[in-house]
């Protein structure tokens, strides 16, 4: 370190006083890291086969429910008039939201040069990708005539008709498609050096062949690395605004509508905060068991858990603040319809129990994260994340359904009860998501090995100069 630079604050307190656990712990040489982390992919644990089987069964349930819906019609769901949107849209918004943490970790934290992102970014990106796949399923299924889905896409149609660009659903198509595309590219580009490592280390010939195709001829030259870094940084720059844009646009599916309870300008930031909130919760939900099963405690340390816990706490407060502002502005607006939805129907109406569930899960449970010991305890953190998952799903459901069920005309007020197909679709996508995730664990290096090694060098360098 040059003489003129200020010392890092943590360092100023001297060795042993650093309250933060390290980002990496005793990971050995580069080769050892590579061997260890690739070994986890090349020699999968025994239970993985069974877990794949179970989740494949759940995916089968999903396919059944999808086929039944497509053959018979949306009528097999519980939707009605006025509740024309219910489970499917809830699931869509929830899954899209989950995807956000991945992009946030990989792109935002990359641009902010947060070192702790390296151990978990691959993981989070995969999660994003699979969550967006689940999410993308619902708007398609949800259509009355899904075989005409492409009418929402602006293409030079022989009918000479374009999509109607004032509708938020048209924006949705663009936003989600962009997001999916960038997520895939970003994830894949990050994966290329590790795929090359897999190509070099895989025991069977066919696997080497397959990995070779996906490694795109990577041979680890300085030129490779230089180009890769530029490309990765550019994509990161591209992906970062998507974190904000996608859920802002998803929120306008509601915000541009007249429906009391939807018609609100706070929705875009509120939805983005909620998305990152639920996304980080999903990271914890997946990371904690994987870390334990794969023995990754030295790569994913308490530092990561602690940081994620802080993120949860921060976004949780943003969400809570949004709730307060939403309710306050409904009251302040003087609009009887808005007031009824926010002040009567939601807390005390037929879906009132959901409101209190949301408050308990999304606002009360995360307050435990003020305590460092809670943040660093994987089990407690995992349970809190679970509560947040439930809370965020419930919040979306509640927000979508209560508003429709208590609209302008009391004559049209009605309730929604999910059908067995609705529930099957939700459970089915959960299974499908897990199935894809297990496949990812089975075939792809789930920790960004090359980036980890770079980080190791960086930290070592820092230590040496420190």
């Amino acid at each position, binding site marked *: 370190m040059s003489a003129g630079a200020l010392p890092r604050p943590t360092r100023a307190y001297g060795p042993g006083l650093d309250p933060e656990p390290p980002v990496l712990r005793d990971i050995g040489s580069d080769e050892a890291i590579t061997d260890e982390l690739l070994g986890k992919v090349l020699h999968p644990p025994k239970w993985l086969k069974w877990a794949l089987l179970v989740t494949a069964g759940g995916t089968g349930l999903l396919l059944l429910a999808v086929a039944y819906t497509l053959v*018979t*019609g*949306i*009528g097999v769901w*519980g*939707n*009605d*008039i*006025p*509740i*024309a*949107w219910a489970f499917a849209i809830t699931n869509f918004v929830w899954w899209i939201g989950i995807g956000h943490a991945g992009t946030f970790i990989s792109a935002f934290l990359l641009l902010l040069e947060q070192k702790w992102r390296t151990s978990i970014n691959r993981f989070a990106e995969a999660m994003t990708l699979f969550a967006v796949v689940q999410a993308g399923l619902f708007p398609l299924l*949800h*259509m*009355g*005539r*899904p*075989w*005409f*889905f492409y*009418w*929402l896409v602006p293409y030079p149609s022989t009918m000479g*008709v*374009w*999509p*109607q660009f*004032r*509708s*938020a*659903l*048209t924006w949705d*198509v663009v936003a989600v498609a962009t997001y999916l595309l960038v997520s895939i590219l970003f994830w894949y580009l990050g994966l290329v050096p590790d795929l090359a490592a897999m190509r070099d280390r895989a025991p069977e010939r066919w696997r080497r062949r397959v990995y070779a195709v996906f490694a795109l001829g990577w041979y680890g030259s300085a030129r490779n690395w230089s180009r890769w870094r530029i490309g990765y940084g550019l994509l990161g720059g591209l992906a970062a605004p998507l974190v904000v844009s996608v859920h802002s646009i998803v929120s306008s*599916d509601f915000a*541009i*509508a*007249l*429906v009391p309870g939807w018609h609100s300008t706070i929705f875009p930031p509120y939805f983005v905060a909620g998305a990152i909130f639920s996304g980080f919760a999903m990271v914890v939900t997946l990371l904690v068991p994987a870390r334990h099963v794969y023995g990754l405690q030295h790569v994913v340390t308490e530092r990561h858990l602690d940081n994620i816990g802080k993120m949860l706490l921060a976004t949780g407060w943003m969400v809570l603040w949004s709730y307060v502002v939403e309710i306050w502005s409904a009251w302040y607006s003087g609009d*009887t*319809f808005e007031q*009824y939805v926010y002040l009567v129907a939601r807390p005390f109406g037929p879906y009132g129990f959901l409101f209190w569930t949301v408050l308990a899960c999304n606002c009360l449970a995360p307050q435990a994260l003020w305590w460092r010991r809670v943040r660093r305890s994987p089990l407690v953190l995992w349970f809190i994340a679970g509560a947040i998952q439930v809370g965020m799903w419930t919040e979306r459901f509640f927000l979508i359904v209560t508003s*429709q069920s208590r*609209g*302008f*005309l*009391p*004559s*049209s*007020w*009605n*309730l929604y009860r999910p059908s067995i197909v609705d529930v099957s679709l939700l459970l089915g996508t959960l299974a499908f998501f897990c199935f894809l995730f297990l496949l990812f664990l089975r075939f792809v290096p789930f920790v960004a090995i090359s980036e980890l090694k770079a980080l190791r060098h960086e930290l070592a360098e820092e230590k040496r100069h420190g």
Partner: protein
Amino acid sequence: MRADRPDPMQHAPSDPIARRAFLQRMGAAIALYGATGCTRAPAEQIVPYVTQPPDVVPGRPRMYATAFVLDGYATGVLVESHEGRPTKIEGNPEHPASLGATSAFEQASVLSLYDPDRMRAPRLNGTTASFAQVFAAVRRAALARREGEGLAIVLAPSSSPTLARVLRLVRERLPSARVFFHGSRARAAHEGARMVRGRVLERRHDLRRADVVVSLDDDFLARGPACARLAHDFASRRTPNSEGGMNRLYVFEPTFSATGTMADHRVRVRAHDIAAVAARLVREISKGRLAVPDVLADAAKGVVVDALARDLVAHRGRCAILVGASQPPVVHAMAHALDELLGNVGSTVTLAPSPLLEAGEPSHDARALAAHLRSGAVHTLLVLGTNVVYASPADLELEKLVRAVETSFYLGAFADETADACTMTMPEAHFLESWGDARAFDGTVSIVQPLVAPLHGARTSLDVLSALLSPSPQEPAPSSHALVRETMRVGHGGDAGFEAAWRRALRRGVTDDAPIAPVPPGELALDRHALAAALGAVRLPPPGALEIVFPTDERVHDGRFANNAWLLELPTVVTKLTWSNAATLSSATAARLGLSDGDEVDVTYEGRTARTVAHVVPGHADDSVAITLGWGRRGGETNARGRGVNAYALLGSGEAIGAGVTVRRTGAARALAVSQPNHDLHDREHHIARKTTLAALETRRTEREKRPVALPLYQLAPADTRQWGMAIDLSLCTGCSACVVACQAENNVPTVGPDGVAKGRIMHWLRVDAYVGGDRHAPDVTLQPMLCQHCEKAPCEYVCPVDATVHSSDGLNQMVYNRCVGTRFCSNNCPYKVRRFNWFDYHQGEPDVVALVRNPDVTVRQRGVMEKCTFCVQRIREHEIAVHRGDADVPPVRTACQATCPTGAIVFGDLADKGSTVARLHADERAYGALEELGTKPRVAYLARTKNPNPEIA
């Protein structure tokens, strides 16, 4: 070319078989190719006219006049026919009972024509037989004994002059045969008239002259033989601007009827206590001139009755008292007395002989029929067009009696309960397949002419009676067509000019004959002693004792429409119950009995028990349980079978009102299919359904109240075409729901069944919302027909991602079914929730015959698309084409709902034409737009529901 060698080029086109076979195979092949793709093209043969009938222009419907008969009384209708296929019924403006409007029954009757459950073939002793065989068997059995001994004929109540003539001939030929009429609803009125007038007379009301109208348990605005006419006349005095001033309506009733929703003062009383109300009115108005037992008159309490008595006296000669058919004769007799006391006879009420055959005779009594059957004197029973076994009180045990008859014949539309009990059955023709005639409530004669040949070779009652009259089985009996013509020829007085008169009658829907003349007031007398004696005999159940009422059902009547899906899915006036009846009661009574809505209950009356569901109706009278007739069917009709509870199984001795009933919870609960679960307006009256009073309006006029004006955010482009709009006067909407069925018939709106309704998927494009407000126990109901408001700034349009709902230059909010992908965003964003989604392929798998009822001018919607009211765009375009073509006398566009509305509450027209009625109504002081503050600029204006309460009571 050699002559012996056929020329293949000439042969092939002249051989239709080869060409058709080729086309069929090609069609099948193409269909199979299509099966691999996404769309299905049905392989059907299209056979064009070989010789086009001279009058038929394909694609242009024709209207024919005929008459719909219910309980013996006719309503004139015009039937729209597309290439020989009747699809839609309109009222006949020339007919006195219609004046262009109809009730829901007429609207729905066309669906019954195409009912797939209709009896298809005659049956003889359990096996299918030919018509000739069954006719021969009927003749053999009926004529087996001399002079018709042992023969009994049961007919539906009828006013048909031809039937009267044929019955005379039958009686001449078979003097010992007995004739009965089953199911008359006018018996109590006839008996009441006989009691005090000495003869059977019917009271006809002229509500155009009535300042004060009183309904004693009479739903006269929505039900009864003259309901469309009465509603029309009532409405002519029902708005603040009515000529002659706004009338005032008092309603006393146990159940909440459509008429009750219109009342300025509605009093909930037990059906039994109506007699007390009438007696108190008689006592107060007669001032002692008529003897009324005080115990009876004092049983009616409350300020309304006494104020009403004063109001009636103040409007002497300008008031009308209408009594419900289910009320006992003594109440009808008191109405006659009130007519005399108030000097209404000759002004608002006239008395005339009934158009019904043998009105008031014992032959109308089901008990007489049962006694005759029980005597064992009957060996041949002919039941013609009335379901005696089902629609009779249980204690008459008619099923057993009919089964005991050696030979029984049933002419009926369905394989129902009576068909099951009879040895021979024959399909009965629908009225759109029949020749006949009938009289309206005032005696005006209409010819019933067929629109289509009987679909299943069905016959009419006249055909059967005619078969009895023919001298030998070989000789063909005169057809009903010939019989009707003969009757008219006799009435016309010979052949001179008869053809022209006949054609005129067919074209107009009414004959030239004068209606039945009323009895001159001078010839009428009131038998005070008989009335006093009858009043002395009235015994009311003690206050607080539970009574039971069996009204006819507003949807299925007495069960005859129980298989008609349009009517089954028609919501009731207040609670919007569909597909079932229930034991209705008030919330106070339910609480006293420990019941809540949806509890399964056992209702026990006179030792008979029926299991049904308790249904709490706001504004129902306390201590009164009502179960409507016509449900709980167990015949062969798939829609009807097993729905609701059969009230006939409880009904004792044939009286519609009984006391001494117990209601007990079984502990189970059942969900009822209700199309509107919430009736509370939540203080949104001003935004949605406005109410006012005549007095408040007058105050406002003098005060010149400033109305808030919304600043226009967008300037609308000046219109260079017509601008369609609608105005609905909430003061005039009775909730009779004829418009709902008319819309369903016109626009091919599917039904969804009870599960669909319970899930909130009813498809009606037009519904009548009911809001219950005011006192929880004696509430005020506001009805609001709700349909697409065709907003100029439509919230549905900007949220559709594929431009499937767009605005037309003439102001219609259009729905493009072909373009719709079914995201349902439009429905979410519709503040009025009038958009309907095809959750399933509702038309898939329906029998071919049902498809015949569809209006060919309106698309049948596929699964997955949104639909909604179009303002009957097909009618608008048809009108525009006619105008463009330069046709003479193009009638103005009338939407289906507007055309059938008896009160004229719905007005449609061009808003750009400042002189049009609709434009005038849009500018009315009472006009407002529902939720107009949202900036949607609805094209439908509502006129605030205006009441005219008695200042003395308020």
